[in-house]
């Protein structure tokens, strides 16, 4: 398979001016993501898994390294150096990000929340809503919820909406941050099915999973991050039991710097 | 220009009342006004011996333009015989020796008028001076003269047009009766003085030079001969002149001369019934004489 994303020596640290602190988050992370494959990031809490996803998506400004992306037209772009408008364009057309949390307007109907990425691609409102409806029924979200805002939904329902929105435009690269974390087993199964489907269609995925079991089922390649940050790439068959035990530990991590700062004394 | 004093002695009055420097200044303003059709040219309006609002702006124009060979006509409300017209005419006769006056539209060379333009089309040999109380049509939407100047300069008349829009919303009609804002030569919008809407079309492509003088507000402006003058209106709500049809839709006629194509004054007789007569007395006389 062709590499779509090559991360080379990625590093990220936060400089907290107020507290005069430098907080390392990722150091010298390197791996390659290929189309039609799922690459899983594993490692203990604080190993900087989310930091890698956010660095790729430019939610974090990378501190070091290169993130080479091969776009649909075959151009190679270093996403560390890309302009804001280039990043926005990639986000619109090629790269999706499903986080643990659904950010959406509390007053927007679920159908519109899911359809939104299609509107950005110029799909008509009617068609976008139709495709959103198809996807939501495939994900077994009850139809009576479609016209309501996801703000009132249970965690599982909301996460399905979140995933549906991430999937609907069929991005070439999909970043997944614990997409099945809050799902009941049945729904998680359904989501796993969808991920497999997307993979089969050629989508490249870089994911963090809550359950080692999910990683084992879906990952074609596993990248283990260690804390303090160091990195080695393991093939799927070489996953070791101790690592899996580590993976089972509850994840918190630095969800956002904003949250970290709020909690800081 | 004749500058012979009326009487000898230190307190004598100059021909045309105003001193020659004042006249020259008015003439300079007139030239500028003609050069920029519809633009309000400021000038240092002199005090005249009649009240502000009684035609001092028009009078300064008349006195600055008049020569001893002039044939002068003075009208107020269409009539040569109304108090103010008589008053002005007497003043002009007194201060401009040699000038002849007439009540006929035909044959006069200079007309000073308040509120009317004669019904008989004016000729290239004639100049009409209209007395203006409020020179600026924008005053209804903008009190500051400084800001109005910019609006005129940029031909920004949207706020005036909004007033017309609001009129139609409220009354289904544009309710401006007289002083109808009129765009001159495609740029400046003027207040054509309190002439009725009936007279507004006479401004367009006029053979005669039309001058406007505002004494109190100290402005002079002009519609030069054969210049476009378009009353502001909407494409689907056109400008309309006064309607003189009776209840049956019949055009009323002047009770005196029978004319059906002139602006009519309305009179309430002692019996309570209404009668109509030409506002323009010279026109009425003319139609009656030819009948």
């Amino acid at each position, binding site marked *: 398979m062709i590499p779509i994303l090559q991360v080379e020596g990625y590093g990220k640290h936060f400089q907290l001016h107020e507290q005069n602190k430098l907080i390392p988050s990722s150091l010298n992370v390197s791996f390659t993501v290929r189309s039609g494959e799922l690459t899983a990031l594993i490692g203990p809490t604080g190993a900087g898994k989310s930091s890698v996803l956010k660095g790729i998506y430019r*939610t974090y400004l990378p501190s070091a390294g290169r993130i080479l992306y091969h776009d649909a037209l075959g151009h190679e772009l270093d996403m560390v150096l890309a302009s804001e408008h280039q990043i926005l364009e990639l986000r619109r057309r090629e790269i999706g990000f499903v986080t643990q949390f659904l950010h959406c307007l509390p007053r927007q109907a679920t159908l519109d929340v899911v359809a939104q990425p299609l509107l950005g691609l110029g799909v008509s409102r009617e068609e976008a809503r139709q495709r959103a409806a198809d996807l939501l029924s495939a994900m077994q979200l009850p139809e009576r919820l479609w016209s309501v805002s996801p703000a009132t939904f249970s965690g599982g329902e909301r996460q399905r909406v979140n995933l549906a929105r991430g999937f609907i435009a069929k991005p070439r690269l999909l970043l997944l941050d614990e997409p099945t974390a809050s799902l009941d087993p049945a729904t998680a199964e359904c989501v796993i099915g969808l991920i497999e489907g997307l993979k089969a269609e050629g989508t490249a995925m870089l994911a963090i999973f809550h359950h080692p079991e999910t990683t084992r089922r879906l990952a074609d390649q596993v990248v283990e991050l260690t804390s303090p940050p160091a990195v080695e790439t393991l093939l799927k068959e070489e996953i070791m039991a101790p690592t899996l035990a580590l993976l089972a530990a509850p994840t918190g991590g630095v969800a956002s710097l904003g949250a970290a700062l709020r909690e800081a004394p | 220009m004749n500058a012979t004093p009326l009487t000898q002695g230190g307190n004598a009055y100059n021909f045309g009342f105003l001193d020659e420097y004042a006249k020259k200044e008015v003439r300079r303003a007139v030239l500028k006004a003609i050069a920029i059709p519809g633009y309000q040219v400021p000038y240092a309006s002199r005090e005249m011996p009649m009240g502000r609002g009684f035609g001092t702006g028009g009078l300064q124009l008349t006195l600055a333009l008049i020569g001893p060979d002039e044939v002068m006509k003075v009208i107020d409300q269409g009539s040569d015989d109304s108090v103010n017209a008589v008053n002005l005419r007497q003043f002009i006769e007194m201060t401009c020796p040699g000038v002849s006056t007439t009540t006929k539209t035909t044959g006069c060379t200079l007309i000073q008028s308040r509120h009317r333009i004669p019904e008989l089309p004016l000729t290239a040999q004639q100049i009409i001076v209209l007395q203006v109380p409020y020179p600026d049509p924008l005053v209804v939407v903008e009190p500051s003269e400084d800001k109005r100047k910019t609006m005129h300069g*940029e031909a920004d008349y949207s706020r005036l047009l909004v007033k017309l*829009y609001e009129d139609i919303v409220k009354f289904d009609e544009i309710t401006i009766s007289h002083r109808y804002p009129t765009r001159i030569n495609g740029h400046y919008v003027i207040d054509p003085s309190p002439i009725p809407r009936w007279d507004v079309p006479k401004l367009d492509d006029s053979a005669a030079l039309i001058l406007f003088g505002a004494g109190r507000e100290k402005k002079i402006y002009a519609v030069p001969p054969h210049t476009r003058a378009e009353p502001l209106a909407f494409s689907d709500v056109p400008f309309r002149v006064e309607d003189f049809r009776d209840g049956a839709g019949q055009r009323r006629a002047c009770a005196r001369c029978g004319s059906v194509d002139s602006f009519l004054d309305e009179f309430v007789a002692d019996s309570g019934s209404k009668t109509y007569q030409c506002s323009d007395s010279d026109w009425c006389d003319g139609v009656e004489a030819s009948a």
Partner: protein
Amino acid sequence: MNKILEVRGLSKTYGPGCPQCVESTGPEADTNLCPHCGSVVAIHDVSFDLFEGEILGVMGESGSGKSTVVKAIYFDQAPSSGEAIFYDSDKQHELFALNAARQRWLRNHRFGMVYQNPHLGLNFNISAGGNIAERLLMSDVMDYGAIRARAKALLARTEVLLSRVDDLPKHFSGGMQQRVQIAKALATRPPLLFLDEVSTGLDLSVQARILDLILEIQQELKTAMVVVTHDLGVIRLLTGRAIVMKYGRVIETGLTDQILEDPQHAYTQRLVASAL
């Protein structure tokens, strides 16, 4: 995607100005008031680009100069120096080099502005419909029926009751006044819209619906917008990119989620940390 606006080195000083003005003001000096000559350096050397259909946030607290930026581009206040180029389909306009009439034309035809204070954006002495009509009349639409229809359509779109089209804005609630302002700003279908603290001071629920409306309109019309606000929530909700200002200087610029999650400048970090 094409650039619609390019702003370079925009500066505005109130007062006589002196050679020390720039060095003695700004975030490091912790003031925008020049101690030598008393001038206020409202903005200095502000540069940014705006692309078609994009919403750019300008954030900062009062005195940061954020409103001055849009007021300069909208020709409300002439800048002291700097340039701004507006790319209008095949033409480009160097905004501050244009004469007053040309600037007014652009303002009427190609720009829209929604102010925090509805008195600035609306004429309170004419009806809601009349306010929209005014903008259309400025653009030489002279058909009463067409003006009326467009005014009603815009008010319907901004969710103002049609029965109130002929009412005076002073009888409207604050939220409704902002809707009329938005309708008025959109009357000429401008490709570029400025929003200056549009939802500040409104009740939270009203605020939310105004912001929804702005987002919907942006999706429908693909209008490029510059949103000025001190409210991180508004920035998060509406904008894709943002610039952060303090004492007249741009101290940070980036994608909105990056600024909120990984702010670089000490001031931005403090701002984000203090948000509820």
